[in-house]
């Protein structure tokens, strides 16, 4: 699977023409996104360049400790980013942190244990990044939905608690819907992959000159690994986070109704 191509800075600079086009469209139709497009282009350049150097260092050092350190940083930043999208969930950071850590560790552990990838920085860094990134998106979507659903379903949840149901029982339908939300995007995109869009890994490998069969196989491995990781992330995040809406006495926090 090892392929290597050289991309010059000039080629990257030339692709900025498309960024200029995006900004022009925004300016022309008064979408007011020119500034955001500029920031996005700049940030992606700085962030990817920095991570590129970091990955280069890690590959050269060829030690797993640096890989774990990089993945741990990704997990922390992923949890912080996802928290900002789950504002209605009290103390969402810890459930997200645990969810991303477990999703990353279990998925990478499995793909190594099953002999799919070698436990080397060359595989663990890019695959770990994809796994944690997708797990972050899935758990953020799941907790965002959980927050909305808990707000919308307060009356039903409290009526169920009033029957002597535990918080887990009362929140079960809500948690189920949140979990589903977290997973559905990747499930749907996996269904349509190859028909409606070509996923990034496959595109990258084809551009790099790889055999299309290899590109497809690697892409399939990654899609299947991502399905597992988003399921684990959404499950752990919702399972831990729903409890933050309840007190130890099985009461819904911050009850809100007139008396």
């Amino acid at each position: 699977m090892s392929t290597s191509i050289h991309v010059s800075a000039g080629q990257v600079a030339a692709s900025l023409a498309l960024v200029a086009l995006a900004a022009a469209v925004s300016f022309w139709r008064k979408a007011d996104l020119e500034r955001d497009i500029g920031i996005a282009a700049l940030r992606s350049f700085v962030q990817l360049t920095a991570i590129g150097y970091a990955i280069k260092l890690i590959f050269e050092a060829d030690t797993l400790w640096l890989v774990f350190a990089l993945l741990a940083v990704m997990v922390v930043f992923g949890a912080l980013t996802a928290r900002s999208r789950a504002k209605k969930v009290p103390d969402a950071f810890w459930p997200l942190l645990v969810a991303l850590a477990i999703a990353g560790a279990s998925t990478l552990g499995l793909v190594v244990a099953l002999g799919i990838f070698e436990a080397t920085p060359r595989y663990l860094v890019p695959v770990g990044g994809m796994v944690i990134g997708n797990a972050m998106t899935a758990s953020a979507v799941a907790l965002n939905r959980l927050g909305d659903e808990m707000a919308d379903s307060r009356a039903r949840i409290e009526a169920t608690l009033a029957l002597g149901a535990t918080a887990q029982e009362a929140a079960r339908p809500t948690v189920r819907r949140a979990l589903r939300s977290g997973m559905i995007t990747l499930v749907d995109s996996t269904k349509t992959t190859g028909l409606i869009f070509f996923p990034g890994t496959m595109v990258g490998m084809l551009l790099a000159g790889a055999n299309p069969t290899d590109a497809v196989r690697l892409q399939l491995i990654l899609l299947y690994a991502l399905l597992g990781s988003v399921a684990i992330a959404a499950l752990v995040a919702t399972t831990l986070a729903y409890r933050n809406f309840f007190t130890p006495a099985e009461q819904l926090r911050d009850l809100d109704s007139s008396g």
Partner: protein
Amino acid sequence: MLFELREVSLMRGGRRVLDSVSAEVPVGATAIVGPSGAGKSSLLRLLDRLADPDAGTISYRGRPLDSYDPLSLRRQVALVPQLPALLEGTVASNVAYAAELAGKRADAARCLRLAGLDPGFAERDVAKLSVGEQQRAMLARALAQEPAVLLLDEPTSALDHGTRDAIEATLVQLRHELDISIVLVSHDPEQARRLGEWVVRIEEGRVAKAGPLTEVFG
């Protein structure tokens, strides 16, 4: 005494909803009356331990409320909220769920009859019931747990007069058929007159008057 409240205060959203409420609720039928926003529903929720007071104590049958396991307490003291909030499914599945939680055998036909619903409603989807029917299904669901106390939060506020009279008749019938105490929250003093033996009148989070019906309404 069923419930005893001593100097109970409750804050919500920075507002004092209940302010040093002291009251007794005896076995039988008690009506908690007062204008909207007086703190009646909050008080009812405290009796079911769906919330805890910020100050003061509440006891149930002579024991502090927080000394009971909240889940088994709620199976003995069943709260039926103001707005129907049934679980997805049929009336029978809701009744069965409640019975199972309380470790009772589900007799949907009996519960529906006690709540004034025809047994034919058992297999009806709850989403297709009228508000009045849902309110009765909520009552049937609570009765499936064979509770000792029913806490009813404005059980007829969303209903027309005919349905209201029918539900009130059901409640009177329940009192006669089952050995059950009822604590009813209502903004309507006339409903308290019709259903209550004991009345607690609440105004702006404080007890304005409490005692036997004849004494409070003179």
